[in-house]
């Protein structure tokens, strides 16, 4: 599904990713862990197509496409989804209106008919239930005045509505209390199927108790320096990142 090869990325001339490779297949959940500044969020943003990142070498193939050639909206329509670490507040655009436009953009792209307001509401209420989101949150302006937890729940709600092939969760656990963490995890686990894949980017292991990864990777200094199974996450939790830094310091 996703094949990243020797990816080098700079921001304002400063190298952030320095030869990252990663292969993700349908049905898999990958956890990417690493200390602050290791390049985790950069990876998420480059995958989603944000401006301001210069890819200087390497390639990303996604579902047979050269991902870097696709505009952000086309990536999304092809089933890629990024749950933002810091979801943007957009006053004046209601959550519902926004999501209906997003869902229909994807449906049109796939040659499907658009959903009308009634149909949309039915789907939305069904998905909202999983995340304990009520109608009032759907009617409010997109993320405006939402608490940290509400924003993250809204990201996962959007994910369930758009039903992506590849979901990338960028530190979705940051700022969540244990209850919210469970709700969010439930949403992600609802999505899991043999057809799609999830990349969970996180600093801490605790989310991985709820979303159990098939693979764990340690990102350090812009490279994946170690890969393993879910046990690696537990090891990192226990020993911290210090040993990684010592072992792989450039």
């Amino acid at each position, binding site marked *: 599904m996703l094949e990243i090869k020797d990816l080098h990325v700079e921001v304002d001339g400063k190298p952030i990713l320095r030869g990252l490779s990663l292969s993700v297949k349908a049905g898999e959940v990958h956890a990417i862990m690493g200390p602050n500044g290791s390049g985790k969020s950069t990876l998420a943003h480059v995958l*989603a197509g944000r401006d301001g990142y210069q890819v200087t070498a390497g390639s990303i193939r996604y579902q047979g496409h050269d991902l870097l050639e696709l505009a952000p909206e086309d990536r999304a329509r092809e089933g890629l989804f990024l749950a933002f670490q810091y979801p943007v507040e957009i006053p004046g*655009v209601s959550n519902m209106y926004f999501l209906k436009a997003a869902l229909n953009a994807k449906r049109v792209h796939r040659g499907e008919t658009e959903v009308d307001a009634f149909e949309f509401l039915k789907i939305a209420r069904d998905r909202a239930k999983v995340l304990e989101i009520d109608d009032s949150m759907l009617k409010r302006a997109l993320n405006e005045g939402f608490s940290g937890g509400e924003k993250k729940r809204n990201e996962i709600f959007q994910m369930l509505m758009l039903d992506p092939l590849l979901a990338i969760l960028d530190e979705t656990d940051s700022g969540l209390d244990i209850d919210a963490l469970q709700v969010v995890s439930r949403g992600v686990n609802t999505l899991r199927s043999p057809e799609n894949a999830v990349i969970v980017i996180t600093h801490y292991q605790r989310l991985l108790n709820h979303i159990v990864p098939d693979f764990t990777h340690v990102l350090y200094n812009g490279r994946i320096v170690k890969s393993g199974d879910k046990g690696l996450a537990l090891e990192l939790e226990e020993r911290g990142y210090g040993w990684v830094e010592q072992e792989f310091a450039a």
Partner: protein
Amino acid sequence: MTSDFTGRYIDQARRAQATSGAPGFVASARALALQRFEALGFPQRRKNEAWKYTNVLPLVKVDFDDDVAYPTSDPTALERHARGLLWAKALVVTNGRVDRERVDSLKLPAGVRLERLRDAADAHADVLEAALSRFADQETNPFALLNTAAFHDALILRVAKGVALDEPLCVVHFSGSQRDPSIAHPRLLVVCDESSEATVIEAFVGHSEAPCLTNAVSEVFVGANATINHLHVQWEAPQTAHVSTTNAYVRRDGRYRQQLINLGGSLVRNNVRTLLQGENAECTLNGLSMVRGTQHVDNQTSIEHLVPNGNSWQLYKGVVSDQGTLVFNGRIFVEKDAQKTDAKQQNNNLLLNEGTTINSKPQLEIFADDVKCTHGATVGRLDAEGLFYLRARGIGEAEARNMLTHAFASEVIDACGVDDLAELLSETLRGWLNEG
């Protein structure tokens, strides 16, 4: 100084006055207005600070005809151009003219009177003194004086003490011309007595094949503890220039709200002046200007706090694209005795591309020492973070831009206080954005 082209306006005004059939006190007020217009002439950019950014000379040199009764021979044109504004309580005024039957056929509740000046000047002599004679004597805007001198007729709306107009009254000013350049001078006088309530929509729409000019004046007297919501929706034909003057006089505990929406026209100039004359009076002046092509929109507001404990709020927003020009000058005047005044002014502008022009100027004249007065102006572009967020969800770039622009403009539309109108404007805005 009278140049050749002002002479034509003066002749037209003389003819209008001769055929107005109004009693002497109206005639003398209008003669005074004409005299003062003659003395002032049209404003010139270099000599008149208030007109610094708007050059009206090329406009007023056009040979406008003031005798066009109906803008078009196409009977469906009105429906098309009124764009959903023909509600239950709607009155259509064409090029400043309206039939008596049409006015009389409006079903208005007891205590609400709507009449033409030519039919009922004597009955309203008490308010016309202030609205015409004092106006003619004190007004300094030449266009407003010209309107006073040259209008074909005026509408007078009176709401009696304690009466609430149950639904909005919509005056649709339908202006323009099929062939030759034409000018209209719509005039509205609204007098709301103590503790009354009314929502008045003035919609300026038109049909024009030729360059035209709408020169409107509206005066609103807000009685003690009365509440007036006044909506000015400028939706003129692309060839039509629009100059408007709105004066509101607010008594003790009165509330005046005006929403000024600019969607059409070529050259547009709005003068909005509110005088808070009684204690605890308040006003809200909101504006939204959508400017594109080579449109030029100039909004001048003046809020005058004349007595203590007045409140005013102001939110003017503008969206400018192509080679459009938008001007905002917001004057807040606080008289020496007007202590505990609380005035807030905000002017936010969104530029959609390079090549646009924005002039934004707060003008604070504060002579009291115990007041709160805040103002702020911003000029910006669409938020890159927001754009990326929408695109990352599959929404195309053009639609994402439109969505954010619509959201920016919605703040004013949503606050207009008339749900049906807000919905209509919101849809119009979507159309406006999709055309761009």
